[in-house]
């Protein structure tokens, strides 16, 4: 058994070395560098004290929260519907809904341009209906649509997996006791799905906070924290500020996921 232990350590070692050398140490270094700028360690407070950074932090949090709420609603409805009903074409519909699961942010940005860009579908439709082209791809609204696009497939998967495990008899019981459909949803289905919704919501929130491929494609002037970090690093060459801001951003997303994990009791990982 003793040699077994040595073997297990030897098997874990390569992953551990790579992880420590290329993740933990660089992250610690990033934290140190965040304090070496003009502002010193106060850089870590700058995200709250500097109006410029605070406004983009608030905008990012609001965007991420709105994305999370809308995604949970849309994916919750579609996911429960798909897991509760059997009909022809259901498998194809499910496959199509989860196809964009791993589309990168840049490509999703282009999908938003296809929908709501200058030559997009929605402006064409509003032009035909109201005689005015509604173009909103290159703004916060476009980013919101992009993050919805990104979050819906994975959230539907999570909701469906959780809804399959629910006992339909509890719903039957509620119905036979006179509960209307809305009441069943509010008092039976939503509480039962809560852990899954919490876990999926945390992933939505964290990815919407930290992603920037979509914003990069749509417009570099959208005021979200990842874009600010990118600009500080590349255009301003303010490495210390970029380091401090990205460390704060990482702490927020990590905390959101950790919080959901403790609350839902299962492990959660963001993806994409």
């Amino acid at each position, binding site marked *: 058994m003793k040699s077994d232990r040595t073997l297990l350590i030897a098997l874990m070692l390569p992953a551990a070395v790579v*992880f420590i050398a290329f993740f933990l140490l660089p992250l610690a270094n990033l934290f140190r560098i965040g304090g070496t700028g003009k502002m010193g360690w106060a850089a870590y407070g700058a995200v709250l004290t500097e109006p410029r950074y605070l406004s983009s932090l608030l905008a990012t949090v609001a965007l991420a929260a709105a994305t999370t709420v809308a995604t949970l609603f849309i994916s919750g409805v579609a996911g429960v519907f798909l897991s509760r009903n059997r009909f022809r074409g259901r498998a194809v519909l499910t496959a199509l809904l989860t196809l964009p699961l791993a589309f990168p942010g840049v490509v999703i940005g282009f999908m938003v341009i296809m929908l709501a860009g200058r030559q997009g579908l929605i402006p064409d439709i509003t032009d035909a209906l109201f005689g005015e082209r509604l173009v909103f791809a290159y703004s916060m609204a476009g980013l919101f649509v992009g993050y919805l696009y990104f979050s819906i497939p994975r959230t539907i998967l999570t909701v469906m*997996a959780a809804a399959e495990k629910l006992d339909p008899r509890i719903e039957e019981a509620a119905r036979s006791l006179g509960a209307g459909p809305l009441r069943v949803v509010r008092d039976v289905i939503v509480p039962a799905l809560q852990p899954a919704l919490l876990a999926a919501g945390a992933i939505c929130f964290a990815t919407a906070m930290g992603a920037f491929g979509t914003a990069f494609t749509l417009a570099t002037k959208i005021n979200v924290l990842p874009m600010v970090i990118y600009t500080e690093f590349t255009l301003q060459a303010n490495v210390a500020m970029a380091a401090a801001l990205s460390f704060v951003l990482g702490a927020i997303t990590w905390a959101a996921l950790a919080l959901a994990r403790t609350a839902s009791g299962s492990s959660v990982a963001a993806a994409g």
Partner: protein
Amino acid sequence: MSARRRSPTFWALLAFTLAVCAFLIVPVWMSMLAGVTQNYFTGWRGGLTLGWVIKVWTDYRHTVFLSLKVALACLACTLLLGVPAAYVLARRSSALARAIEELLVMPVAVPGLATALALIVTYGGFGDVRRSWGFILIGHVLFTLPFMVRSVLAVLASIDLKTLEEGARSLGASFTQRFFGVVLPNCRSGIVAGSLMVVTLSLGEFNMTLLLHTPLTPTLPVGLADAYASLRIEVGSAYTLIFFVIIIPLLVALQWASRPRDPNATS
């Protein structure tokens, strides 16, 4: 259920779900079509062409080859690092093992932007590392490793590994024989699903790669962003079409490989 007459609620919910599906699929279809039209303004009636695709392939094929190279190298690394790690985590149920599992997932929880910056400020000055595609590879391995570990771990946790291994051991199998003869064949489905996920994510990774790449090492998504920003919509669409041709078969295979399980969460 299906024999019963459908209620109005059913049709309303079906319409809602179809609308969500249209939201996801219509732009994919539009961009694929735009990539093969002569002129996007006049639409497909103006004629179809492969001209844009050929132009993109001529100008940007090096990004496709680099991305494929990085993705395959990333797969090799995550297999070598991740499968043994998952095996150890499956064998041990101590608090330390769970803590390691949590730590390994961190690169997915922390935005790629932060990880990339951390790598640049720490290793950016080391000789030629910054200029080689190996720098991108490091980022991709960090980001995709958790998916391989979790995918393999999920399968290992669902089988009775201990009994299988003890059986093999009592028959005189050495550790190497057990690992390659018993453990690996049993977690094959997890390795397949994990590998597809790793290749798919590596091919599409942008958040880190944008900072880690140099003008000499642009990957496919970096090239895409460049094309979206500076070239006409037909070129961007044709480029996206090439990306879809590579990524969609992988995503379909991924759906097939991970059908019974939820790829997002392992409990």
